[in-house]
């Protein structure tokens, strides 16, 4: 557990130079907003897990080693209900979205093994969304590492604070934190959604996920949203009619092409 935190801090130090160059004040402030919110959710996770009867070491270990909020809340609920196998299966199902997300941000992690091994652990929805919101590769990298590192620190600090505070921590819902995360994530993908093609895919995917939520176990609806990619097949594949009016007609309408890509991260 301490090896892991050490490795993360070493990496943050190693990457600091390039991150500091690429991350401007605004990016740091934006990332800090998410980091702070994650800290408060970590606080409520810690308090809830302690109230559920889990030992302090297990609560903290889970935050450091699993580092995926949704699955941690789920695991605590299922473990305290006496179904450990369900806790594992449901948690892994909820986290399965990280596989396709990882494919999408593979370029951000690069090909060097240390960066891949540490960076993969920092893969959370927020770091992926922040990276996708940046146009230049350098800024994508900075946003990913900064967000992942910041949330790793605040999430775990929040967990420890929650363990110590116990029931005094309060309910995050009364602060509206449950609205803060969807709104923040939406703001991060909004620049991409200004393209008609992305809007079609995301709209169809989101609708499928919402409709599937009442009938499927948590995690599957979000994975099922990938059927939204079928929207690409409709109205011509990749890029034909969907090029944004203002955008330059990149070859094949490939918004993800690394060179140029000004203002169009995705």
């Amino acid at each position: 557990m301490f090896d892991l935190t050490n490795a993360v801090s070493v990496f943050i130090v190693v990457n600091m130079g390039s991150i500091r160059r690429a991350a401007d004040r605004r990016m740091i402030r934006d990332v800090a907003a998410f980091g702070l919110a994650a800290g408060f959710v970590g606080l409520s996770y810690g308090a809830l897990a302690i109230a559920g009867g889990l030992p302090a070491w297990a609560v903290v270990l889970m935050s450091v080693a699993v580092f995926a909020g949704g699955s941690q809340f789920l695991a605590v609920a299922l473990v305290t209900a006496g179904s450990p196998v369900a806790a594992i299966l449901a948690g892994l199902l909820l986290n399965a979205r990280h596989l396709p997300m990882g494919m999408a941000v593979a370029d951000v992690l690069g090909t060097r093994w240390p960066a891949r091994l540490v960076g993969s652990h920092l893969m959370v929805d927020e770091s992926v969304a922040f990276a996708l919101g940046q146009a230049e590769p350098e800024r994508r990298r900075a946003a990913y590492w900064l967000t992942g590192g910041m949330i790793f620190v605040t999430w775990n600090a929040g967990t420890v604070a929650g363990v110590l505070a116990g029931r005094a921590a309060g309910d995050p819902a009364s602060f509206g934190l449950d609205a803060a995360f969807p709104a923040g994530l939406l703001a991060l993908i909004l620049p991409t959604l200004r393209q008609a093609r992305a809007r079609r895919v995301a709209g169809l995917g989101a609708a499928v996920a919402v409709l599937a939520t009442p009938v499927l176990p948590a995690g599957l609806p979000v994975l099922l949203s990938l059927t939204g990619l079928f929207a690409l097949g409709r109205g011509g594949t990749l890029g034909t009619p969907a090029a944004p009016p203002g955008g330059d007609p990149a070859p094949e309408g490939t918004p993800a092409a690394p060179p140029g890509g000004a203002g169009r991260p995705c």
Partner: protein
Amino acid sequence: MLTVVIVVLAAGTYALRLSGPLLRDRLPLPAPVRVALPLLAVCLIAALVATSALTQDGGFAGWARPAGVAVGALAAWRRLPFILVVLLAAGTTAVLRLAGVR
């Protein structure tokens, strides 16, 4: 038992996280699919936004949360600073709940 749950969940989650970057190198994906990969992440995040804004434990989440997210979305649409988007969303939901809206 608890240790086993945490270790297996942690190892499995890490494996899921690591396989994305590794698979992208090794899978012989056709070029159009490669190009569509960022869209895939946008699609997943949009689905996360929609489900976490509207649902809780498989049912409707109540009005306070989607209202807050909608205010945040409007703020983001008007290109307000990110921190304001987050604060407006949380603040709206908190105030609505304080006023008794569920």
